[in-house]
């Protein structure tokens, strides 16, 4: 039996699943027939879980129970300024969880962010299994290169909750490079420019003889298509406020409609020179008359609204080139990833910056999932046609005396890697050392993200500077960090696996996994019951006709009538497929009997 593994692009706005079948990578269409699934989750009035296009369609009428853009929040703590900003702009409720983490509320129930991602993953997982027709458990999930340790860990947790065996977390630009690189044999240096729904990543890679060597990677986790949408929304809100003196931002339903209209306008402007935005009955004025929003947006106007965002991406590209120690002229090809790269202004800016036209024949929405699927297949079957040499996206180190950030593993170090530095005590008779593990790019310790804090104790009392403690950072191929402190005198060791200090505890993950699995099982059972019920309905109808057209003995006709009554009441709430099957069997027997005796 062929083993399969999934490649999943878990995006901010859209997700996508791919698989390698008979050596060919392909995207699997979802239940609605689309190749990408909006990363939107909702709980309907009935308590049913809605995902993707279904969730998106009802987002306007069910704004507070529909969550999206959760990738912006995953792996962050509640105090994070970005989370605070999301609390102001997103229509659903964001609250603090038990570990200072972020939870979202739908239908009075709190969900952790890995749970939300797990719902999307489960949906994609199911779609793939239905397509292949056998269980698939292994998957590679992609994350933006710029994701830090906590965000990667939260993504792995999401996979676990969805019941997936996450083989590896790989970076989106690297995945795109694999998908591109398998089409070419040449030795070349490429840039992967990924402007997605919520994040921007740029990576410079050297592809040589099957080895994908990431030279540098950088990006901005808060720059993406949604910022472009927001510029349009702000523009429209301002127009409306000028005209009617009403602030639409206070109405979540109006904002949802604006959001959808803005996204559509943005996409249309990639093809058309201007679009008309019509939102009738968007608001009622104080005197009770209905107000409509009518506006025309030209491509030029739109480009003016967002030109600074595009310039920001180019500045980041410049940094990536410098980190990789190459110049624009060394770049042989630019691979564009993410729906935003369809915008003519973005394409023009990129070609001008890199002095080369972007690679053709690449679908920016699908290339990441395709690359992940290729890599998953490689790992599974040990083809090892290519090997990935990825890098750490951020500086890793510890806080040292004076509040400074001491870097132990600099950014853009090839992983897996291991770096160590020897530290010494700073006071006389110091017996313990507080170690604060940081990730970030600021020289002041406090400005970076704290990955873990631990105390290394049992140091021999001695004058300051006499005892040496070696601190080692190990980063594995997933980008997950382990820190070891060792007393060089006694060889005593303290190992801290950062991965275990992530937001969710193992118990929580297990519980969430069970809840998700139970929900999916009951959904499946319900679906089966509905199918059987539909079948039963036909049988009952057939039996009714028979009873009416045949004159039957009283004993038989009373039995048949009870049977019909039982079946009718069972069909009112079809939840037990087993009972329905028994009934259906009885009815079919009865039909058979009557037909034979007639």
């Amino acid at each position, binding site marked *: 039996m062929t083993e399969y593994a999934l490649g999943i692009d878990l995006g901010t706005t859209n997700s996508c699943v791919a698989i390698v079948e008979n050596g060919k990578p392909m995207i699997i269409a979802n239940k609605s027939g689309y190749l990408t699934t909006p990363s939107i989750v909702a709980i309907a009035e009935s308590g049913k879980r809605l995902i993707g296009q279904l969730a998106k369609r009802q987002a306007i009428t069910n704004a507070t129970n529909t969550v999206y853009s959760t990738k912006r929040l995953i792996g962050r703590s509640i105090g994070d300024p970005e989370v605070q900003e999301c609390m102001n702009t997103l229509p659903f409720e964001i609250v603090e969880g038990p570990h200072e983490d972020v939870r979202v509320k739908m239908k009075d129930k709190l969900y952790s962010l890995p749970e939300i991602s797990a719902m999307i993953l489960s949906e994609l997982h199911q779609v793939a299994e239905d397509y292949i027709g056998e269980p698939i458990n292994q998957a590679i999930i992609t994350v933006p290169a710029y994701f830090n340790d906590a965000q990667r860990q939260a993504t792995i947790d999401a996979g676990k909750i969805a019941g997936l065996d996450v083989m590896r977390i790989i970076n989106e630009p690297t995945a795109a490079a694999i998908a591109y690189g398998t089409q070419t044999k040449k030795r070349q240096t490429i840039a992967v420019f990924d402007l997605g729904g919520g994040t921007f990543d740029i990576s410079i890679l050297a592809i040589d003889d099957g080895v994908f060597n990431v030279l540098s990677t950088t990006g901005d986790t808060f720059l993406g298509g949604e910022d472009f949408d927001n510029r349009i929304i702000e523009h429209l809100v301002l127009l409306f406020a000028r005209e009617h003196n009403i602030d639409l931002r206070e109405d979540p339903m109006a904002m949802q409609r604006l959001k959808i209209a803005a996204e559509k306008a943005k996409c249309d402007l990639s093809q058309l020179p201007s679009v008309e935005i019509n939102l009738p009955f968007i608001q009622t004025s104080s005197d009770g008359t209905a107000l409509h929003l009518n506006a025309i947006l030209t491509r030029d106007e739109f480009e003016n609204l967002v030109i600074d965002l595009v310039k920001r991406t180019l500045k980041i590209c410049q940094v990536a080139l410098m980190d990789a120690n190459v110049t624009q002229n060394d770049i042989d090809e630019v691979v564009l990833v993410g729906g935003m790269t369809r915008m003519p202004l973005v394409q023009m800016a990129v070609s001008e910056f890199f002095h080369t036209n972007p690679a053709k024949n690449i679908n920016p929405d699908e290339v990441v999932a395709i690359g992940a699927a290729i890599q998953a297949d490689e790992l599974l079957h040990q083809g*090892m046609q290519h090997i990935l040499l990825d890098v750490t996206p951020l500086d890793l180190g510890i806080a040292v005396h004076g509040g400074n950030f001491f870097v132990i593993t600099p950014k853009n170090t090839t992983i*897996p*890697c291991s770096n160590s530095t020897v530290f010494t005590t700073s006071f006389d008779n110091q017996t313990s050392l507080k170690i604060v593990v940081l990730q970030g790019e600021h020289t002041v310790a406090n400005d970076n993200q704290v990955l873990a804090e631990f105390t290394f104790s049992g140091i021999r009392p001695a004058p300051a500077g006499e005892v040496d403690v070696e601190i080692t950072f190990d980063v594995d191929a997933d980008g997950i960090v382990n820190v070891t402190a060792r007393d060089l005198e006694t060889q005593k060791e303290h190992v801290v696996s950062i991965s275990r200090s992530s937001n969710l505890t193992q118990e929580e993950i297990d519980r969430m996994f069970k809840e998700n699995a139970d929900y999916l099982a009951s959904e499946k059972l319900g679906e089966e019951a509905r199918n059987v019920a539909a079948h039963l309905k036909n049988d009952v109808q057939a039996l009714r006709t028979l009873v009416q057209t045949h004159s039957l003995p009283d004993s038989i006709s009373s039995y048949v009538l009870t049977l019909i009554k039982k079946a009718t009441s069972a069909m009112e709430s079809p939840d037990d497929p087993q009972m329905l099957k028994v009934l259906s069997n009885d009815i079919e027997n009865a039909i058979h009997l009557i037909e034979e005796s007639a």
Partner: protein
Amino acid sequence: MAEGLNVDAQAIARRCTVKSPDYDQLTPLDWVVLDFTDGLRTFESMLSFIPVTKSDLAASFIHLRLLGFLTWNSSDKSDVQAARNQTANTHEPQSSYSGYVPSGMSQSPRSQSSGGISSLSSAGVSLEPAIGSFTDEICFQYLPQRLMNSFRRFQPTLVDSTLDLSIEMQYFTEYLHQNLASLSPYDLLGLTEGQCTKADVRQAYLLRTKQFHPDRYFRKNIGPFAPRIAAIFKAVTGAFTTLQSKLKS
């Protein structure tokens, strides 16, 4: 696809007449191994009637390989050749043994057999399980000449033929890992100081990447070799980074 070892009859014959210094290096165990090599016996079955430890036997196999008395009878010979050709552009094979093994000469050992050597010539000890092909074959070539002697004398302790890792890679991995501290960046990449360009360094690093990147053994049962392979990869990456910046200036 069983891989096996063949006795290189011509090489032995040549050394029986022309006294080769390598000939003196054969240990009594090496002779025993050659005696029992009959083309059918596996590594495990040999172990059952030669009263030595697994690691001694493995060491003997490797020595015979290095001296050119045994060659692979691999069904993937074409891969080996391709890999050789690919790397030949930038590197001359550096090990002495490769000179005794002209390509393709071990394809039909039976027809070459004659006289007293015939019992040795029908070789084909199967060394299973073995994964990969070409990197195992050429790993020895990427050891600098000055280390060859210590490599030949090395006695492995970890050899376990039940792992998903060829005996050769096990031997090579244990050797490198045990000597990590004393190997220079050049040694790690199999280069000689002052005789390589920046491109050579890059080429050598790509090869080492294919040998030692942990992904190559993803979820394979390689037992105690997993942490060693990871450590070697990290050291090799460090060596590459060092040499890249050194050769730039």
